[in-house]
């Protein structure tokens, strides 16, 4: 069976994503887990690029890695002193969680493989720049997604004010 270069790239991206994700949930040291999260998010950005969603690949790196993962590392640094990295990092019933996660995975794969479109190949994209232009137009068009777009900006404002208020320390 011939493996094309693009399939090889996909396998590399998937190995990076899933391998780093496994390290995130099993690393002893919480800071190492945060850094493995950064690696996993890079893998996801690679998968986005393979899907020709190039805008979202860049947004993934800038927003998820450049903001969210950095926030997580900040929080890890600010809560350093209490939880020892040598005690148990998982609850006592962790094997039950593993069984449940494996069951959910098996259920998802079984259910998806019974769908007739499971082995679809992608339709050709005539103009690779068109989806981004269409997305931009759709996000501000009154007939499309302007309301979720504006509401999400209000959501960000609310989250900003809420986070400042919750974490504020009066001297």
């Amino acid at each position, binding site marked *: 069976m011939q493996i*094309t270069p*693009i399939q090889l790239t996909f396998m590399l991206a*998937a190995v990076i*994503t*899933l391998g780093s994700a*496994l390290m*995130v*949930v099993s690393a002893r040291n*919480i800071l190492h887990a945060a850094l493995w999260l950064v690696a996993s*998010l890079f893998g*996801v950005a690679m998968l*986005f690029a*393979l*899907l*020709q*969603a190039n805008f*979202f690949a860049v947004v*993934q790196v800038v927003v*998820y890695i450049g903001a*969210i993962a950095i926030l*997580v590392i*900040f*929080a890890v640094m*600010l*809560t350093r002193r*209490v*939880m020892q990295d040598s005690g148990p*990092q*998982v*609850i006592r019933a962790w094997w*039950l969680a*593993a069984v*449940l*996660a494996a069951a*959910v*995975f098996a259920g998802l*794969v079984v259910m*998806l493989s019974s769908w007739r*479109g499971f*082995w*679809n*190949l*992608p339709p050709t*994209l005539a103009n690779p720049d068109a*989806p981004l232009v*269409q*997305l931009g137009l*759709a*996000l501000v068009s009154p007939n*499309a997604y302007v309301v*979720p*777009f504006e509401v*999400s900006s209000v*959501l960000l404002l609310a*989250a*900003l004010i809420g*986070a*400042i208020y*919750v*974490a504020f320390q009066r001297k």
Partner: protein
Amino acid sequence: MIPLSWYLVAAAALFCIGLFGVLARRNAIAILMGVELMLNAVNINLLAFWRYQDPQQTAGPAFVAIVFVTAAAEVAVGLAIIISAYRRRSTVVAEEIDNLKG
């Protein structure tokens, strides 16, 4: 050519790894990292279906943009809550933050 199944199985695996992280980890920040993995799996799924079913539609990418925004907002507020709880109770272990326990 990559079949759609590869993306869907990879996203399902990432989702289940995040699910394990949420259910099994004790540190509250580690639980949040599991939630982030689950949200990324959802994004992969959305974009894979968009690309393979109908790339002319904008519903998929618009949904993904909203998921990005929501994930950022949720992480900011969640970490603020964890830091605030840490300052009061000096713990980040989720099972020790039990003031509301009966």
